[in-house]
């Protein structure tokens, strides 16, 4: 079961990666307007 000592911290690191990616997305304004893109993608021809 000593594999846990590697796998669990790795999982935490992955989660940290997710949070950082989200922080980057939010800071570049990708969540500023969440309504319009949903409509826009229906139109693209």
């Amino acid at each position: 079961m000593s594999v846990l000592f590697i796998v669990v911290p790795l999982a935490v690191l992955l989660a940290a990666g997710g949070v950082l990616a989200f922080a980057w997305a939010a800071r570049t304004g990708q969540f500023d307007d969440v309504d319009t893109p949903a409509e826009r993608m229906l139109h693209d021809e």
Partner: protein
Amino acid sequence: MVADATRVQAPAPARGLGRGPVLCRHCNLVVPPGLINSSRADQFCCHGCQTAYSIIHTCRLERYYELRQQLDDRAPAPGTDRTYNDFDDDTFRRLHTRQIGPLIRCELFLHGVHCSACLWLIERLPRMVKGLVEARLDLRRGIVDLAWDDRVVRLSQIVRTLASIGYPPQPARDRKSRAHRVAEDRRQLVRLAAAGAIAANVMLFALALYAGIFDAMEPAHRTMFRWLSMVLTVLSLAWPGAVFFKSSWVAIRTRTPHIDVPIAFALAAGGLWSVFTTIKGSGEIYFDTVSVLVFALLAGRFFQSRQQRASADDVELLFSLTPSSARRVEGDATRDVPIESLQPGDLVQVLAGDSLPCDGEVDSGDSLIDESRPVRVTPGDRVAAGTLNMSAELFVRVQTVGEATRVGQLMRLVADGAQRKAPIVRFADVVGAWFTLGMLALAEFTFGLWLWLEPRHAVDHAVALLVVTCPCALGLATPIVITIATGRAARRGMLIKGGDVIQCLSTPGVMILDKTGTLTTGGLALVAWHGDDSVRALVHAVESTSSHPVAKALARDLSDPSATPLCLARTNQVLGCGIEAVAAGRRVVIGSLSFVSALARVTLEHADLARRWAAEGITPILVAVDGVSVALAALGDGIRPEARATLDELRRRGWQLRIASGDHQDVVTRVGSALGFTLEDCLGGLSPEAKLALVERTKASLDPRSGRRLVMVGDGVNDAAALAAADVGIAVHGGAEASLAACDVYLSRPGIGSVLELLDGCARSMNVIRRNLWISLFYNTIAAGIAVAGLLNPLIAAIVMPISSLSALAVSLKSRTFADQRSQPVLHPGSRP
């Protein structure tokens, strides 16, 4: 806009003639018979619609009409033909645009954006205007972000195209503060995400640890999970959770009770004790509880602030839609310039129907200015910014602009009033503060008790108590109730800008009402008729020929659809006095007492009545036929149909009502007595400063502990400062921009009918909040009992606390606060259907 009744709901594909009503190709409204041109395939109800259609058609963007029919049946606005030259002015560029690389960008509020088809059409704007590189629309806020090449196209050209396809734009004001708000929104979102990720991971570790209790976990694994939980939770407290510590530190320093203080205590206690036991290697840890708490509280706050932001955005949009340009005379021509670039000494042209952009002196022209009632101005008269030019073109010499104008000074008073507004000690905060004190005392007691009984477990039990009794319902359920309530209120046309409003309006207090536009319709209306009824048709026929506001009001209120139209032979109008005409073979003179008595014999009875009415503040209009006065009409500010019923209901509920108006005392007394006010509650002749003083005096006389608050209801520029100073300022539909900026609640339906609905919704929301507190109190009492008895193990704590929060949450979500439908009619006993 044409009334809804004339609109055909289903978009009829057949546009041919002779089959049912003919519909406009652009807006789907019925085309008036006179405008039908049988040689054309497409019919239009007005020139604006035709222009809009031809632009859309030429650019091969007809798919707009298909999209619109699928998605929405609301009609688009017809185009306008403003020049928008002021958008090219240097001042405008400096204030509203920014240069990025070779392109210039600008954000504009668009009026009339409401559906997916609008989005499609507006984002295809670059196909219509050469040189425009990008147009991106934020559908919910109605803001378009434009990027264009300045060497190819000018902004005014882009904007004219936007306006001509039915989306008149206005510059988005306050770019800096909006950028600041967007940045804060983003930070909040990142904090929420971090707290959520940490909470989820720590919960997983906690599950493993709980499973390990029954399943003989290896001590090394146990230690790893405990240490990892600790690292993550400390991170959660130090980064997203820091907001609670910051705000409770401010609350402690300023000695104001705040909901964050008990939360910060619970978080700190749970966190520190768990860190201690982790390092020690034995004892319970509460990292899962602490990190989930941080996430849940942040989530509650996030949703609440988003909802209130949406309401504030809507109000800001209205605010931006007020005119911001002036027509400056330069040599022989006029040019549209932004108000900001006007200088004292400039000459501006003000068309009939426009509002005045500056304080100044009339240079030439002869017109009526709306200052709660029409006032005639001639060269040499002073006029004030923000008032409306009603009847004819005026040229005005600018004297003061911007901050220095009367409106500007009022706006400064508004800002001061908003600053002076004392923070309201919220109900939940008070309960929270007492709750914390009680729990801290109880924890102390538990500690003492167990120190005496069994010293080894004393700290353990005390901390368990603090964690399990954390006021979750206060911290999470209260914001959620407020969020749902403000969201529903917004859909019903009541925009609530602050959370305090709901508590303030839930108990009756003192309400000060403005008269003009709030209790009355704000325009001229026929309020009395004395004499021969048979001449009404005659008066209607004569007055229909004039565009004077008095004549318009008479023509409107005397119109009788069953009467046959009369034939007019000759009319002669004397501005500010009256009108003389020959109709149906009879000589008719209509006008003021002096005008009519010069041209006809006025009976003593009529002259007396006219003088009495004038003294009461209503305008008497004499009617003479064939040289003798036969009737007397009185024009005044008509009382809104729903006003009496609404006010009676408010009084029945225990509200104390007063009228405060800038109009003459006699006018106010007349309206007030018709609405059931006593003489001392009708205050007239108040300047904006006097209204502000009245609000502050009344507010000071109320006992803050009684829960009675001062509510101000108004709409005009002169109410703005009072609205800002009151505990709750309610601006009603059609309000001036200053009052929009100052109010806490904006009612988008005219009149005070929706005030009752607002009060009902607030009272119900407060009941739900109270119920939540009782539920959480019930759970916490039981949990505290178990904790004091020393029977609480982490498993029970982990189950009991979320149950308390979840049940409070379920109750909040199911509760009826504001009615949930968008179009349900509000009926009051006195209102017309």
